[in-house]
């Protein structure tokens, strides 16, 4: 069964076209990687799937579990099981990480031990601080993943969870992502579904992905075996991919 189906999606913000003719299918239980240079449209796609304002769908549709979610609110999408880990989430005065985690935990059927999880993410000393205030890049990623874990979505999207991390920090983040995807307690035999945005590919060493997509100028121009795509990127960078896509698709 396809969990996420994006069909002929065109998106613009303030009159500027961000995504065009995006088609993407993610079957249940698969994790896909979305690769691409800065500004290629990866984050815009993620924000559009979550339903954030400012990303106007001008054509196409997004289906989740067979339901068209294009007109649903962010809350409705979150309640359907879509979760997001942002790269640059807002700092909120007076709202702590613990506030958000406890609120999410009340709704969760799994009832997490917040302190235990926070210790695992090495975030226990940030629980009662204004959310994201004064945090380093690595701490923000851990905070976001901690929230994703407690909300336990069916479909998790992560925006560059590996950028700017040293080896130790990458290992903690990798562990959290592994835990997020490794087991769905509601269906233990099934891996959870996800979309990981990255352009450094470091995190993919910690989490096997089923398929990789390359985005360029708002278009998914190439999809395929992640090992082959990563090998090509490692050998030739994005330039070779872009040349290939432009030749094939006239991007």
């Amino acid at each position, binding site marked *: 069964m396809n969990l996420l189906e994006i069909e002929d999606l065109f998106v613009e913000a303030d009159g500027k076209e961000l995504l065009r003719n995006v088609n993407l299918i993610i079957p249940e239980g698969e994790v896909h990687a979305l690769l691409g240079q800065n500004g290629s449209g990866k984050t815009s796609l993620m924000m559009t799937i979550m339903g954030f304002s400012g990303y106007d769908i001008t054509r196409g549709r997004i289906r989740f579990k067979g339901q068209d979610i294009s007109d649903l609110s962010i*809350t409705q999408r979150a*309640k359907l099981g879509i979760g997001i880990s942002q790269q640059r989430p807002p700092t909120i005065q*007076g709202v702590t990480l613990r506030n958000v985690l406890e609120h999410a935990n009340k*709704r969760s059927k799994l009832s997490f031990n917040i302190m235990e999880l926070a210790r695992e993410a090495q975030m226990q000393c940030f629980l009662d601080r204004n959310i994201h205030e004064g945090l380093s890049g690595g701490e923000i990623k851990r905070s976001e993943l901690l929230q994703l874990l407690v909300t336990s979505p069916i479909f998790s999207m992560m925006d560059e969870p590996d950028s700017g991390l040293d080896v130790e920090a990458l290992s903690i983040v990798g562990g959290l992502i592994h835990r997020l995807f490794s087991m769905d307690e509601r269906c233990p035999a099934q891996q959870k579904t996800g979309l990981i945005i990255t352009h450094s590919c470091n995190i993919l060493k910690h989490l096997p992905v089923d398929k990789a997509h390359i985005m360029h100028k708002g278009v998914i121009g190439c999809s395929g075996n992640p090992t082959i795509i990563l090998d090509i990127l490692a050998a030739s960078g994005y330039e070779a991919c872009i040349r290939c896509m432009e030749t094939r698709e006239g991007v």
Partner: protein
Amino acid sequence: MEEKNKANENRSRVRDFAQDSVTQKDDHIKRIDNERFKKSEIAALAASGILLGSEKRAATIVVCDHQLICPLYELDGFEMLPISDALIRYSWFRERYFFNAIPSDLNDIVANCANEKNPLGFFIRVHQGAKVEMPCQAAMYMTKNHISQIVHNIVVLEEGSELKLISGCLNHPRVINGLHLALEEHYIGKNARLVSTMVHTWSGEMRVYPHSGTIVEGGGQFESNYISFSPAEHIVSNPQTWLNGKGASAKYTTAIIAIPGSKIETDGTVYLNAENTSAELSHRGVCTGGIMHQGGLLIGAAPCKAHVDCAGMLLDSGGKGIIESVPGLCSRHADARMSHEASIGKISPDQVEYLMSRGMEEHEAVSMLIRGFLGADIKGLGDELDARIEEMIEIAGHGC
């Protein structure tokens, strides 16, 4: 000029009510009895932080209209008694504490109060070195229409002592018009600490004019929390604090919601008169349609450190809400380090959407943001007050 006329008009209204209070005053003092209040009243008092019969409170005083219900407490270095009794019992009381932190000629109503032979109010004294662990609570409760409740309270903390005081001020729902004026004098001795939390839960056309004066000696600490989420028609609060001893400190935190038809003016002046004194004034206000004035003046006359911060959130979609923030500084010493900041804004849509992406409904996200902005995560005042705060924040959130 218009402001001056309005102030005169208010003063004249205050005088009218003062006459009422003298004639209607009842000095009879009774022991607090839970059976005296109906269940709904006990719940209303609890929603203002006053927990009758609770083991979580060291002592309880209720001023109900013009009647003081104040058992005599004399326990472990702590005493609490009607102010009228204190005037008789202690020969030194009048000279040391009676209108020394509030000028008796502040206005006509205060002058009347100063000349009153049998004033309404209480006296709390914490003896040298005594630390009262549980909070002491005092309710100012109005149950009758068209009366003025004028209360004069004096709290004295002797050297090295500590006290937490919770004051809940409220009117019965049937009361739609009246005046409440509370004169509060605090005397904080060397290295003593007073934490005063005041919760206002008013409704209707109530007018509320608290005056407080606090004198802090060396190393003494005064911490004041003022919460008003259910406002009167008009509230004017301008506490005056004198930090007179080396290392004395004061911290004021106010959290207020102004609703359509209300006018709330919260100021505060701190005189930093001695070396190494410090002060922090923090006003947080959410305006859903009324008029809100936030002020605060720091006067540094010695090497000191102080900061005043006024922050307002305007959630009025009808365009009638007003927030005015005027923090002020006055330096009389080259080594006085003082700063101020003021900000007025609205709820950030990015923040709302971020919380919604965690599964919160929009109104839940807005409530969490308002609660966070007001710093309303106040613990230890009781479940009823927590529930009331939640309710008022929820209502405020619907305006945006």
